[in-house]
């Protein structure tokens, strides 16, 4: 009963995830695309909840849906690029794309059904180990200390990069 319920929820979430991803690709307005992507991030956060990883789920919403997509929206608006112009259609590209996509699907199907033995049982991860924030902190700041500190260097690089790109006209502060 409980499993069935989870399965139903999973399929709903999966539908939302795929639908919003498709909507994001197909929509002609950049703002709509961005909104579909936000919904998609929400669906992904839902999946994290199913994997018993609430911390990652909330971080996903805070950082991706809350911060990065706001940046996307700002960029769309500051470029005034809301309406995408329809792309130039090269006549030979369309059949080629269909053929290539077909090959990709066949390849994926081959790998999934023929090469992998027994795909039936997938162990639900996460229910064993402790996923409380305290446990995550203990692992993150103990075992994965070096990657964590390197993250700060990565963030620093991004910060400097953004500042150099925007390059404010006025150097230094001081006057109004």
């Amino acid at each position, binding site marked *: *009963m*409980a499993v069935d*319920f989870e399965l139903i929820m999973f399929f709903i979430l999966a539908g939302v995830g795929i639908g919003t991803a498709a909507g994001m690709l197909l929509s002609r*307005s950049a*703002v*709509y695309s961005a*909104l579909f992507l*936000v919904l998609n991030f929400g669906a992904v956060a839902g999946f994290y909840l199913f994997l018993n990883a*609430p*911390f990652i789920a*909330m*971080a996903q*919403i*805070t950082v991706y*849906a*809350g*911060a990065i997509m*706001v940046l996307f*929206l*700002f960029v769309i*608006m500051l470029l005034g690029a*809301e309406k995408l112009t329809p792309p130039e259609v090269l006549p030979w590209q369309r059949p080629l794309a269909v053929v290539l996509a077909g090959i990709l699907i066949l390849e994926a199907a081959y790998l999934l059904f023929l090469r992998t033995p027994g795909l039936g049982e997938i162990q639900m991860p996460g229910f064993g180990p402790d996923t*409380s*924030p*305290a446990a995550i902190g203990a692992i993150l700041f103990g075992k994965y200390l070096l990657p964590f500190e390197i993250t700060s260097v990565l963030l620093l690089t991004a910060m400097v990069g953004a500042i150099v790109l925007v390059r404010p006209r006025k150097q230094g502060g*001081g*006057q*109004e």
Partner: protein
Amino acid sequence: MIDLALVLEWVIKSLVVIFMLLGGFAYLTWFERRILARMQTRVGPNRAGWQGLLQPVADAVKLVFKEELIPARADKVIFVLAPILTVVPATVLAVVIPFGTQVILFGRQVNLAVADINVGILFLMAVASVAVYGIVLAGWSSNNKFALMGGMRSTAQMISYELALGLSFVLVALMADSLQLSEIVEAQRTMWFVVLQPVGAIVFLIVTLAEVNRAPFDMPEAEQELAAGFHSEYSGMKFALFFMAEYQKMIVISIIAVTLFFGGYLGPFIGRFPWLGPVYVLGKVVALLFGMVWIRATLPRIRYDRLMDLGWKVLLPLVLGLVLITATGILLADEFGNSLVWSIPVVSILAGFLTVGLVDRSLRRKFNALR
């Protein structure tokens, strides 16, 4: 596994909290107008019903019968969606807040919280960060340059202050050793966190004013220059939803402040009468809301560049410093005896005075340079 009683419990609790917020919103408008009037030696709305208590009902009825305009060349879908996207996060923030411990109701142990999750604080951050969409989209979809500018300004302001907000959450998490809001309240049994962290509490209150776009941080909707900002094209019920979002956010953020710094549902005799919990929360929230109205009546609006300066150059480094001070204080208390925990308020008050002094000096310097 999913039993019907549990689902019913969720539904009832959700509806109770939602309608509490709705009623709170309605009567907060009355409360604010009456108090503002008093502070400006006016009377305020006192005609509809005893002491004007039916005024919110009259307002609601009026707004329902108003014409709703959708400007030409506006993006209709997003224009209608934006008020919903603004009001839902404002309400959902309340879902993780504990209003008391446990009570027995119809023979069931009932938690006085809708969902007391173990990442409560992070949930608050997540919802707060999603709350900006409604505003920026309202500004964009109106096809009005003032609305767009107001929406962008408002968003930039909210995300700037979200950082200081997040860091003051960290302060509380450090002291309570938990992200779960009920545990945070329980950690204040001996002492409210405002005693240990007075500067943090003040910063939190300032930041929340900016987060909900309240005076003196209501720059994005400045009537004089932006014609009401992001919601200038909205009318009727859609406008009412924006209004509702603002007031619900005021209430919810006061509840959060109470939970994090002012002992939440704790008070005398709470152990014997768990039903007193919501009453204590209400009392403390009304006190904070009165403070917010008082601030609106007292302080003029801050200029936008000053506002961004305050967020990025004053509050952010100050809270970052407070986090380190608190962490050091906790470590000292653990190592060398519990009384050293008092180093936290002492040093942080010093840091607060230092910050105020530095701001004062820099403002004086600017003033002198202008002269």
